[in-house]
């Protein structure tokens, strides 16, 4: 790999070492924003070097095995680690130098850094520096929180998705933000049982579709609950939760106990801004950005000229926005260093600004954080069940434009919150599915158009919220095709039970078709046959024991 010229301990000729000491741009952190910054700067001729303390580049990206949201330019429906690989390839082509196992232990005055690689430390100076060190997980305390077995959800994700190790056998997840929801699903994919998903808040913090795909497998959600005590002497053996009132005090008599060996804590992230702090940047403690962040101008420049910050370190959002911010930072640094003109800079960032803006819309936009949103942008009442229990009520589902009825197979789209996302629209060759120019709009299905039952919509929905339903096959049965991302995949003919949106068994079911395709990108399409009265209820399949 061309760009990974220096691994820890590699021998380097003396002549090369001497001109390595000072760089146009030093980037700290080879995650999505750091790499993106290095790519844009390198493309403009800036001599760039990236340092990362990990053994692999990509930051949190390679742990994300789910498909991303957004639009095509945001790499929607592509799995996180694939986006990571694409980023690495782009970095390679741009000639970006990445040094791994390299810990930046200090950011000193005059834009000097000291880096530890192996058994030595090295001094580097940058004419400009971009800090893209990301974030670290928050902790919450409860009786027993220091027992082995209590781990961050991100840590569990690292164990599973990078190292192939199950964090435990039976897990309780604390936290219903996107991290808690997504990692719960991934725990199940890794073969762990998720006993419950708990959050002290009265409403789920993450996307409804993430919650729904967990709830339909049978995981119970306990909102307005939190952990009373983690039990065990030298490791977790069980946990007790209880309901809380408006002041987060436990309500006596509401205790529930679970036998678990692992408690995952997903209570938010805080920027890892220590390097910026020690360098003397003006900082602010901003709850909207989730912690100590540098005060930056519109170009990501801190109070120290030539020192920039990009990605989660400047405010917690997600990978898609981190990558765009990183690209912008690279362009700003190039202008600061005089490699491009101001006009070139403005041209370069215009598209990126629009892309970033596109992501920062909808129900979960940073500007809408903390707001009580009761209706969608279309004026439809948001599913209260979804917010409070993790699944859409059977009596609520008909409200939404993605849910229509007709004879024969047709898509049923259970996407009910405004999120910037539209791969479903492009997936349908028959143009059955419409999102429109404003990509936060709820997808609508046009029942007058024919559905080809190609399954592309089911596979393309990153939220796993699209089903293909034939409500009446003529013989008293209906079929429901759902996205299935677990192993083992049941064989055709397997009998079992269908689960409703709430994860409860609703009826008998039999797997009648299993479809896989490279185009589905590892999402299997499972078609089950159910009694026809359950066509709009049955949403998951569980084989008989």
């Amino acid at each position, binding site marked *: 790999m061309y760009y990974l010229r220096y691994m820890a301990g590699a021998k380097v000729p003396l002549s090369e070492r001497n001109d390595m000491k000072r760089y146009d741009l030093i980037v700290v952190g080879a995650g999505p924003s750091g790499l993106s910054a290095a790519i844009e700067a390198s493309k403009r001729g800036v001599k760039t070097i990236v340092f990362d303390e990990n053994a692999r580049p990509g930051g949190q990206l390679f742990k994300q095995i789910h498909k991303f949201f957004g639009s095509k330019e945001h790499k929607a429906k592509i799995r996180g680690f694939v986006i990571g690989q694409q980023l690495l390839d782009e970095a390679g082509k741009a000639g970006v130098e990445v040094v791994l196992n390299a810990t930046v232990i*200090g950011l*000193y*005055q005059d834009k*000097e850094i*000291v880096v530890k690689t192996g058994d030595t*430390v090295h*001094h580097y100076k940058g004419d400009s520096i971009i800090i893209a060190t990301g974030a670290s997980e928050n902790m919450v305390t409860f009786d027993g929180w220091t027992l082995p077995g209590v781990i961050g959800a991100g840590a569990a994700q690292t164990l599973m998705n990078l190292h192939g190790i199950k964090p435990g056998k039976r897990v309780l997840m604390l936290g219903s933000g996107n991290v808690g929801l997504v990692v719960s699903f991934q725990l199940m994919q890794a073969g762990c049982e998720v006993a419950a998903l708990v959050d002290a808040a009265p409403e789920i913090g993450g996307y409804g579709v993430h919650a729904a795909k967990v709830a339909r497998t049978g995981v119970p959600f306990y909102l307005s609950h939190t952990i009373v005590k983690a039990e065990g002497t030298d490791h977790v053996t069980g946990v007790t939760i209880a309901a809380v009132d408006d002041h987060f005090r436990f309500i006596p008599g509401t205790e529930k106990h679970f036998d678990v060996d692992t408690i995952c804590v997903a209570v938010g992230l805080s920027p890892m801004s220590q390097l910026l702090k*020690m*360098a*003397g940047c003006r900082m602010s403690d901003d709850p909207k950005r989730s912690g100590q962040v540098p005060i930056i101008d519109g170009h990501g420049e801190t109070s120290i000229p030539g020192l920039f910050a990009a990605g989660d370190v400047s405010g917690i959002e997600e990978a898609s926005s981190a990558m765009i911010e990183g690209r912008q930072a690279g362009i700003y640094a190039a202008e600061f260093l005089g490699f491009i003109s101001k006009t070139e800079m403005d041209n370069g960032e215009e598209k990126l600004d629009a892309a970033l803006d596109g992501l920062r819309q909808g129900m979960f936009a940073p500007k809408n954080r903390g707001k009580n949103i009761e209706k969608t942008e279309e004026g439809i009442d948001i599913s209260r069940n979804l917010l409070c229990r993790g699944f859409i009520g059977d009596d609520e589902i008909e409200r939404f434009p993605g849910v229509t009825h007709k004879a024969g197979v047709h898509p049923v789209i259970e996407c009910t919150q405004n999120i910037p996302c539209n791969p479903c629209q492009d997936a349908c060759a028959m143009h059955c599915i419409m999102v429109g120019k404003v990509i936060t709009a709820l997808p609508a299905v046009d029942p007058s158009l024919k559905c080809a039952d190609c399954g592309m919509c089911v596979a393309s929905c990153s939220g796993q919220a699209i089903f293909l339903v034939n409500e009446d096959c003529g013989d008293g049965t209906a079929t429901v095709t759902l996205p299935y991302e677990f192993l083992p995949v049941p064989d055709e003919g397997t009998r079992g039970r269908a689960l409703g949106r709430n994860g409860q068994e609703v009826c008998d079911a039999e797997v009648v078709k299993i479809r896989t395709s490279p185009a589905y990108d590892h999402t299997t399409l499972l078609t089950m046959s159910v009694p026809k009265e359950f066509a709009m209820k049955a949403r998951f399949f569980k084989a008989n024991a």
Partner: protein
Amino acid sequence: MISYKADVIIIGGGIIGCATAYYLAKNNISVTVLEASDYIGNGGSSRNGGGVRQSGRDPRELPLVMYGIRNLWPHLSEEIGVDTEYHQDGNLRLGKNVHHREILQGLTDRANKVGLDVRMIDGDEVRKIIPYLSDEVTVASWCPTDGHANPLTTTLGYYKTARKLGARFYTGVKVMELRKVKGELRRVLTDDGSVFEADQIMVAAGYESRKLLGSVGIDVPMTRSLLEALVTEAEPHLFDQMLGTADADFYGHQTKHGSFVFGGSSGFEGFNKDNCTPMTSSITAPAICRGIMKYFPDLADAKIVRTWAGWSDKSADGVPVLGRVEEVPGLIVACAFTGHGFGIAPAIGDQMAKLIMSGTTDIDISALHYDRFKAKI
């Protein structure tokens, strides 16, 4: 904006100010301490290496520090309700060659002359005290009555107990000017326009003392240099002594917690610049590490968890300026401790309190008088 009157105002919330406030409050004197930063003890008080020593001191300050070690340090923890972690297990200054031996011999002779027990010992005797020292150590000066303590808890312990006894502390108050009223120093003016008034005012504000004293026509010739230190993670207990070297490569001790606190120098201390945090320089900590490993090869794998820097306020002749300023009645000065104000702080606090309350001290401090600075010819 406040308008406020007290018996005594102390400018400076470091250990000198807090200790003096404690000894005054203990005797029911109403005292107010004004600290410019947001933190008590944020200057040298919390940044020094924790040495409580007599050896190596100028004879002019020796009686004070010996008084403190004899009368105040031994029971200080109980008195101020914190664990000061005071250990009196001796001080070793290490040497490896003939040149070092000369330096250490000079130090020993000067100490003996003023009645302080310091002796020269050879390498084998050194390793009997601390077996982990390098074989290259051939000589050391040994002062059995020196020791070390925890500057953070000691400073905050004085603060906490003074506060409990009624001393008032204000942080975030920057004093801009001292003002006489009818010939006597009575007023203190701050940056937000407040005026504090008192019968006696003590200036113990470190380097900032100079500017402040200038406002009433007093100059303390001071400069300052930026020193650095580092601390390791907790290690198994190795030794209790305070350590230093003839070459001043490093100094330090092992704390109760098990971590090692070491200071040292790159040689550029007089020139280091700061971004106001105070900020360490990229070349100093590595130099300190090399200095330590020359004597302690066993510590090579100890992990350093933090480095920091602090300004040392250096007087022109290496010892502090202390006592009354006769030409400004009501003014007492205690500053310019030149990097060794910690060990002597309890004695300073105790004696300055006595000076404020009774007009005299038990120990003769005339050699540290403010107007001792004369031209060389």
